[in-house]
């Protein structure tokens, strides 16, 4: 199947037996993972456990070595798939923001709308302004990224992803590069999104956020999913030894 059809009766993301090698190094060792529509799944685990690689496989920024990745019912490892079309449905927020430094905030938000979604300039700008207001940055259209704080840059990055009207948002440690006093603003925006019913996959070390906002917590270690369940339950009483070891260090 190569046509992209948005179906509401299937998981947003369904990953099965995903393996990923970098050269001889097996980084993902058979991952089964899913995110239901409207669900907020937090992925935690030690550095190097493969969280980013898993997240990046979901829109094929990394090519999976084997296994299937089904996004809204469509197998995206299919060679015939229109990958760019799928990617507009998946918003990604990176640890390092990755804003376009040569463009002002408004252009950062309108560029892909015009290029990938073929929206008119005025329509794109309207949508951009709406999303800037949503992340609390109305009026900063003309600023350049380097004139903003890290927290503001990350909120612009969220607004940029939202401007494509994605069905789901993937966050890869969105607050790890921020000064502690700027983390709260970004988490607030993410909490609002979750409350509005956005499907979210959040790789994070913010256990407070995972407990309050997450519907499910997935603990990864050494390229496998070790344990998953309700955040409150796992954080209070982790079943697996490796989970206990990890949580005792970060909590």
């Amino acid at each position, binding site marked *: 199947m190569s046509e992209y059809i948005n179906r509401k009766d299937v998981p947003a993301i369904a990953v099965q037996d995903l393996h990923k090698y970098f050269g001889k190094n097996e980084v993902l060792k058979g991952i089964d993972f899913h995110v239901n529509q409207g669900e907020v799944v937090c992925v935690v685990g030690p550095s190097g456990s493969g969280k980013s690689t898993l997240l990046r496989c979901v829109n094929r920024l990394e090519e999976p070595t084997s296994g299937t990745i089904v996004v809204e019912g469509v197998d995206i490892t299919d060679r015939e798939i229109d990958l760019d079309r799928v990617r507009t449905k998946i918003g*990604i927020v990176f640890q390092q923001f990755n804003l376009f430094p040569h463009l002002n905030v408004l252009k950062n938000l309108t*560029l892909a709308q015009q290029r*990938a979604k073929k929206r008119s300039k005025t329509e794109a700008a309207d949508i951009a302004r709406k999303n800037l207001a949503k992340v609390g940055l109305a009026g900063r259209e003309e600023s350049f990224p380097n004139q903003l704080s890290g927290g503001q840059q990350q909120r612009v990055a969220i607004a940029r992803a939202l401007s494509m009207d994605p069905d789901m948002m993937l966050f890869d440690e969105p607050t790890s590069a921020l000064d502690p006093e700027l983390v709260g603003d970004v988490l607030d925006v993410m909490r609002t999104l979750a409350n509005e019913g956005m499907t979210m996959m959040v790789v994070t070390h913010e256990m407070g956020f995972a407990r309050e906002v997450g519907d499910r917590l997935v603990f990864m270690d050494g390229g496998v999913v070790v344990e998953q369940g309700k955040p409150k339950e796992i954080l209070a009483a982790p079943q697996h030894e490796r989970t206990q070891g990890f949580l005792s260090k970060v909590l």
Partner: protein
Amino acid sequence: MKPSTRRRLFRAVLYVIFLVAVAALVIVADWETIATNFLDLGVAAEQFPTIITTAAKNVVIYTFIAFVGGLILGLTLALMKLSPVAPYRWVATAYIETFRGLPALLVIFGFAYAVPIAFTEWNPPGGSTGAGLIALIVVSAAYIAETIRAGIEAVPKGQVEAARSLGMRPSWTMISVVLPQAFRIITPPMTNELVIIIKDTSLLFIAGMALGDRELTTFARDAVSQHANSTPLVMAALLYLVITLPLTRLVARLERHNQRSR
């Protein structure tokens, strides 16, 4: 002796050496001969206005053609060198290595004389000067390609990933995200390329030029032999500086401006 005293003494010695050297030059130099041979106002006046309206103008025109042509061809080569298609990479690498390894003078000579002998249908616009200009484009493209490739590779990988994950095609990602940043990064080395091209237009003489096609160096050489006096050479030198100095200043300004939005 205290270190500070020694330093001061050392500096005093340097000043003395400098003054002695200048004094020696002033005494030894034959100022009258220098003035009549290099600064003859009568000869200077005769060069106007052609040295400006033809020679200097042609330098600017040739530089413009060679730079714009080199930019277009160089960008194409840079993209070929970064292409996932291997034969494109081979061709680009072979081209770049070849023309960076050859003297520009030889390439100009080849295009003006060797190629017309081999291909009789080869008939470039502008005659032999045109053929020389094509050679300049061919040579500058090799250098510019390497500069652009380095600029593209200096753009952080996260930029491409951000654009691609927003659903932008590779071509749009290159045009709207990567190249604008790459060109900012390579502004200083590109200025060098431009200044080198300005100076390399002086090599076009080997192509053999019609009177109206002459650029500064050729024009000055002709005038020097005509008057048996070197003043036109000094004038040509000054005019080259008049062209290159504002350029390097301008680019320094642009760089400061770019710094702000980077």
